[in-house]
């Protein structure tokens, strides 16, 4: 039993947090909501230079060969400042999809491009009638001479507007089968419409209007992607938890610091038990989120059965994300209701993280099933 990060992970975390706190204030995420790309390319470039995009890419493909826990360390640092950019959709969703499903040749080609930052990726899975559950996907991949033709509409596709490759999850031709197809970001027949989101992430509606894909652009084996895709969603859920832990940690730290300095009735508000008890409750929630997330990440990194631990982590973290940031607002008072104060960015990020890859209700139902209910 060793319930802390390794020396290397602590160094990675310190370096990442230090860099981001300097280069990426939380307000940036909000300022970038109107930007065409949604993030400053210079920031993304620096993340690439520090090797973050290759954190889980094997060294033979130009990465640093870390594991899922290392990835979570970087995500936590990104969450601490609500960093904007294509890291999650590229490195987590794209990278892990390639690692779970890709052939050796695809891994070599794509992972090295992810590591060097040449390839921004997006995952097109959810649809109007399908959320976090591939069995309800309707977008079809029709087999045509020499490849596939995709027709359908995907929703909530983060960073589709800047993606070099969109991973499109389709069903067919066989009933209930699942394939993941690699679609070039500029493929004819793609229509990408950015959506306006709560936390400023660039989610898009992506219409695939008879988009053609070569046979070689099936990620891994055609029509057999379902188990690998489920594993991808589980890992994405825990990755989102790691990001949330960082986000909540900052909101919490800001709140405790504010409670120590803000005076009312001639004394710091942090000396009042009502405020102290809110802070204590926030710490319970946050510590719980951290350990539940670490436990799930540890199981994923070790490729141990992880279904229950993932559901526990995302159910708990989703719930406390909302609770912790709401209490943060309460203790800050009116100042935090102003746009110029950064707390609302964390409140927004917490809610969007709560919903992403299944909220508490979604994961509680998984836990219920696991209990034998």
């Amino acid at each position, binding site marked *: *039993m*060793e*319930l*802390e*990060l*390794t020396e290397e992970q602590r160094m990675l975390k310190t370096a990442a947090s230090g860099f981001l706190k300097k280069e990426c204030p939380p307000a940036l995420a909000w300022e970038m909501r109107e930007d065409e790309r949604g993030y400053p390319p210079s920031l993304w470039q620096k993340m690439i230079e520090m090797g973050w995009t290759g954190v889980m890419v094997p060294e033979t493909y130009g990465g640093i060969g870390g594991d899922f*826990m290392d990835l979570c360390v970087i995500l936590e640092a990104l969450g601490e400042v609500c960093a904007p950019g294509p890291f999650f959709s590229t490195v987590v969703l794209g990278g892990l999809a390639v690692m779970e499903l890709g052939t050796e040749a695809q891994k070599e080609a794509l992972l090295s491009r992810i590591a060097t930052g040449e390839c921004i990726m997006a995952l097109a899975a959810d649809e109007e009638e399908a959320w976090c559950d591939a069995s309800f996907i309707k977008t079809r991949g029709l087999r045509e001479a020499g490849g596939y033709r995709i027709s359908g509409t995907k929703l909530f596709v983060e960073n589709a507007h800047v993606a070099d490759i969109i991973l499109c999850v389709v069903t067919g031709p066989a009933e209930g089968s699942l394939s993941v197809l690699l679609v070039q970001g500029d493929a004819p027949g793609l229509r990408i419409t950015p959506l306006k989101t709560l936390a400023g992430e660039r989610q898009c509606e992506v219409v695939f209007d008879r988009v053609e894909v070569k046979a070689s652009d099936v990620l891994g084996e055609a029509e057999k992607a379902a188990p690998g895709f489920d594993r991808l969603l589980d890992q994405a859920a825990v990755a989102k938890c790691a990001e949330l832990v960082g986000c909540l940690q900052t909101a919490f730290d800001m709140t*405790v610091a504010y*409670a*120590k300095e803000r005076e009312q009735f001639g*004394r*710091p508000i*942090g*000396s009042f*038990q009502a*405020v*102290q*008890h809110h*802070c*204590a*409750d926030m*710490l*319970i929630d946050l*510590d*719980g989120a951290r*350990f*539940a997330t*670490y*436990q799930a*990440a*540890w*199981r994923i990194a070790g490729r141990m059965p992880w279904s229950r631990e993932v*559901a*526990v982590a995302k*159910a*708990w973290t989703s719930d406390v994300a909302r609770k912790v940031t709401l209490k943060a607002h309460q203790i800050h008072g009116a100042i935090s209701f102003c746009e110029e104060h950064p707390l609302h960015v964390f409140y927004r990020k917490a809610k969007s993280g709560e919903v992403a890859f299944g909220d*508490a*209700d979604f994961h*509680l*139902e998984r*836990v*219920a099933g696991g*209990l*034998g*209910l």
Partner: protein
Amino acid sequence: MDFSFTAEQERFRREVREYLEREVPPRWKELGYLIWEETDESWDITRQWNRKLGEKGWLALTWPRVYGGQERSHIDQLILDEEMARAGTPTGIETAITIGWVCPTIMLFGTEEQKLRYLPDAAKGRIIFCLGYSEPNAGSDLAAVRTTAVEDGDHYVINGQKVWTTVAHRADYCWLAARTDPDAPKHKGVSMFVVDMKSPGITVKPLINILGFHSFNEVFFDEVRVPKENLVGQKNMGWYQLAVALDFERSGVGTPARMHRTIDRLVAYCRQTRRNGRLLSEDPVIRKKLARLSVEAEVLRLLCYRITWIQEKGKTPNYEASLTKVFASELLDRLANTGMEILGPYGMLDRGSPRAALRGEILRLYLTSPSMGIGGGTSEIQRNIIAMRGLGLPRK
């Protein structure tokens, strides 16, 4: 990050589990008593059980050998606690008081002679302490104790009253907080004593708890003479020693293990009970409630593991023990209440009643649950500790 146990630790877990499966007395299982439920019969069973564990060296696993321990790791202790809770071994709060609180404090602050006088006997399950902390006007404000200890030759003379004193009517010794300097500020005039409960001048009067059992007492001290060598640690520094002792509480990992057991029983009940046309296990509201409890109990387990891990590193937990306690207490309330909601009208049926569900265990748990957020430092006090000691929030 590594949440796993070594092969050797897993072997120990199997050894413990097999032993408990074999050895837990059938009569104890039949009684089905929870904490605060205690009779002469159950007391005999728990005493015998503790002596048996004591002979095996499992009662004080981590203590130095010279004091009757096995010098095993805190992780082994965690495994033992978890398995004992899972198996439902005969135990009461008195073991936690004696082995978990009083003895570790004696180990830290006592003289060698004091340690050798009490610890080996405690490790063998031969002696039990009760806690002489609370008084009618010193509850959460423990430093306000008024019971006095006045020097008289080679003795202290004790006068005063303690209350809510669990198992005072059965304990061998009282671990007593008494005022030795009435003129000092309240935190700086308290000392700790070991008082033989057979001493002349001690009167114990029963208080019946809300489960209908005699676990609590009032204890009156009238000119009770205690040899000076029974003062433990530094005179007038008792309050600080006592505050440290609160951090010694073990991981508390037994609580989530017992909670998971209760959740499993409720799941089994829901799978075989039909109400208004469907199985309870098909009701989405019930599914969600039980799943949420399971998630929370899992998070509690991890927070308990953290305490063990801190101890294993040779450090003393700071706010972490308080955090775990407050979360555990409130989770127990939720578990008991959810159990009552699920059982519906059957939840109203007590142990021994015709048609009682799950042997009335949930009703008993519901009655028990308010105690956890009160005893050993209320949830409010725990939150104060988290805020002030853990987060450095100001006192004024």
